[in-house]
């Protein structure tokens, strides 16, 4: 069973739809017990970081997430919330990844919307994926490159497309909306 973290962010159902298509059973929940006993946990999200963090704290989901021991995948806002701090509403985040989230400088169209390829990638999430494969992004803030970065993308500047630390994985792009390439990446996570 895959647990998808339920909180006040959009796009959560899309992740469940993608898991359904891949044949994996999932439950959308914020019950700590259910999250703890799941084989894997996905922490998705599209939305605003400040109100999302506030919600996680109020419901005490923040501590549940950071204490998880099984593989966890943060997606988009999920990746950003797993970092130390974000400039969006000057928000302290969960601090799993030792890096900060900043707003793109106004040197191009913002948000970064659309399909983009990789500058670099390594790690088991990207098995069978090449630099020229494109994945779908929608975001105005980016995570700086850090020792936890496992894939990079360039838009205005180079940023973390994906990160990994111990059992925590995250992608800035949306694998659930990235056609066949996204499905491969999701499957790689589901088969960890």
């Amino acid at each position, binding site marked *: 069973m895959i647990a998808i973290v339920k909180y006040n962010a*959009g*796009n959560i*159902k*899309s992740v469940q*739809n*993608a898991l*359904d*298509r891949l044949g994996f059973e999932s439950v959308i929940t914020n019950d700590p017990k259910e999250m703890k006993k799941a084989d894997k946990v996905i922490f998705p999200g*599209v*939305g*605003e970081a400040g109100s999302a963090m506030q919600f996680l704290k109020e419901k005490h989901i923040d501590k549940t997430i950071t204490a998880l021991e099984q593989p966890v995948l943060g997606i988009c806002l999920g990746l950003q919330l797993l970092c130390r701090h974000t400039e969006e509403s000057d928000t302290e985040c969960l601090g799993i990844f030792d890096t900060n989230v900043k707003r793109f400088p*106004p040197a191009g*169209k*913002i*948000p*970064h*919307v*659309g*399909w*983009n*390829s990789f500058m670099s990638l390594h790690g088991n999430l990207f098995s069978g994926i090449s630099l020229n494969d*494109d994945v*779908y992004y*929608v*975001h*105005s803030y980016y995570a700086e490159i850090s020792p936890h970065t496992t894939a990079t993308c*360039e*838009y205005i500047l180079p940023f973390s497309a994906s990160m990994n630390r111990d059992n925590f994985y995250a992608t800035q792009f*949306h694998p*659930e*909306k*990235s*056609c*066949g390439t*996204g*499905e491969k990446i999701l499957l790689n996570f589901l088969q960890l």
Partner: protein
Amino acid sequence: MLKKRIIPCLDILNGRTVKGVNFVNLKDAGDPVELAKTYIERGADELVFLDITATIENRKALTGLVEKIAAQINIPFTVGGGINSVEDVENLIKAGADKISINSSAVRQPGLISEIASKFGSQCVVVAIDTKKTDAGWEVFINGGRTPMLPDTVAWAIEAQKLGAGEILLTSMDRDGTKDGFATYITAAVSRSVSIPVIASGGAGTMQHFRDVFFNTDCSAALAAGTFHFGLIDIRELKNYLRNENIDIR
């Protein structure tokens, strides 16, 4: 490298796609999900579903259709047509739409853009602008292009961005359906004036039209309906052509 997007638009009437379709190997050309899957298989980067259903009762079927699309489609999609309130948006987003597009209602009540953006994020708000060159300049029209409402398309695009729009879908009414090519002048002017992505629409008839709009303007995507439905241009061939023209394409 961020790629230029190719977006087919499907017109929906009572839950079915309309306009003649010339695809071979398509079991049911009227089923939006079947048609969408064909486009994805050919390389579409995103899809727009435009509901042209007139009555409120029939519009309810749209939510069910959006759920079905969301369950089966693995690329982002936008739903537009007749959206008048935050409640309309909430229903579509909950059903699985990634983005919604608003047109007449945004012109009539610009505050709606901010309301939707603050509740669901700018990334899901596409403001569609129908523009036409008149003696007064590039005017903004509403009600499917029947009513001139605002005198200045560029000024409206800038205002929409300020209010929280995440993208602009700019349709040239002069070119729409003509297959004479995209209106590059106004597309360039709007793209230059806003910092959010602009989707060019209206007039696509040949592969060179797509090249020209990407070459001569700063637009992020190009949208077409009839040109793809009628099989005049195959998306995969189009993308190969654009790649050979050195345009960054997925």
